[in-house]
């Protein structure tokens, strides 16, 4: 980043952070995301877990908006909450939930799994308490109005040149094609 641009960015940076919403908004969204995340992994009925996951995804989309990422928030709502979750709900309808909701919900090794997850949480806590000073307190404001345009420039290229991620974008489309073929072939009864 050149110095002129840097000073321009600094002048748009304001003292606190919260230009869009108050910190309370962040705490509400984060609490909602974590609470419905707990509901995802504890509900007996898979449909309820899916609905709780939709709430988590929507509140994470709200957090993206607080981070000046409107395009990623839109992708989150359209692709995740709109596409992937519909896929999940269809599969839940196809496999019978009646029987599986009456069965034991946790596998036999659940104490080991829980202990491993607690160890991971302890790792996070120690890393975050030790490395707290690594993260600067002030965050840089990104231009929100041209966010989608800049992401498009990086993905598709701009001014006749290939973008930085154009090749990766094409590879991603190939990955999606392979995933579609795999899903169709695996769900066919006879190939």
């Amino acid at each position, binding site marked *: 980043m050149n110095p002129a641009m840097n000073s321009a960015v600094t002048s748009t940076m304001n003292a606190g952070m919260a230009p869009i919403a108050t910190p309370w908004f962040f705490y509400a969204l984060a609490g909602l995301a974590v609470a419905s995340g707990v509901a995802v992994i504890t509900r007996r009925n*898979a449909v309820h877990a899916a609905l709780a*996951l939709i709430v988590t995804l929507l509140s*994470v989309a709200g957090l993206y908006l*607080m981070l000046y*990422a409107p395009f990623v928030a839109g992708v989150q709502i359209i692709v995740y909450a709109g596409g992937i979750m519909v896929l999940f709900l269809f599969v839940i309808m196809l496999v019978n939930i009646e029987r*599986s909701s009456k069965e034991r919900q946790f596998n036999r090794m659940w104490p080991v799994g829980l202990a491993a997850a607690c160890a991971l949480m302890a790792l996070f806590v120690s890393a975050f308490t030790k490395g707290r000073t690594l993260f600067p307190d002030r965050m840089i404001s990104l231009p929100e109005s041209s966010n989608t345009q800049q992401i498009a420039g990086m993905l598709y290229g701009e001014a006749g040149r290939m973008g930085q991620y154009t090749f990766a974008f094409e590879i991603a489309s190939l990955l999606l094609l392979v995933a579609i073929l795999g899903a169709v072939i695996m769900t066919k009864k006879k190939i």
Partner: protein
Amino acid sequence: MVPITTFHYLVVAAALFVLGVIGVLTRRNVVIVLMSIELILNAVNLNLVAFSRMWGNLHGQVFAIFVTVDAAAEAAVGLGILIAFFRNKETINVDEIDLLKW
């Protein structure tokens, strides 16, 4: 009131990640295991977007979009495998999926 910094977002993302790991390691229902994987990927996305904000460039957001593409591909293939398996064995419990064991 403390202003919200990158660190706050990292804590939320770590909480979601740990919840997803607990779901993957303890639940029996494969559909819920796949949903927990989605939770994990969302935690990673939140980290990427928070770091993008911290450094003031958009590479993290582009990367988050690629992670979303991966999540869609993974969900499609995983649920396809699940349907094929359910057709053969009439079960969706992880500990009863042992066709490759002998």
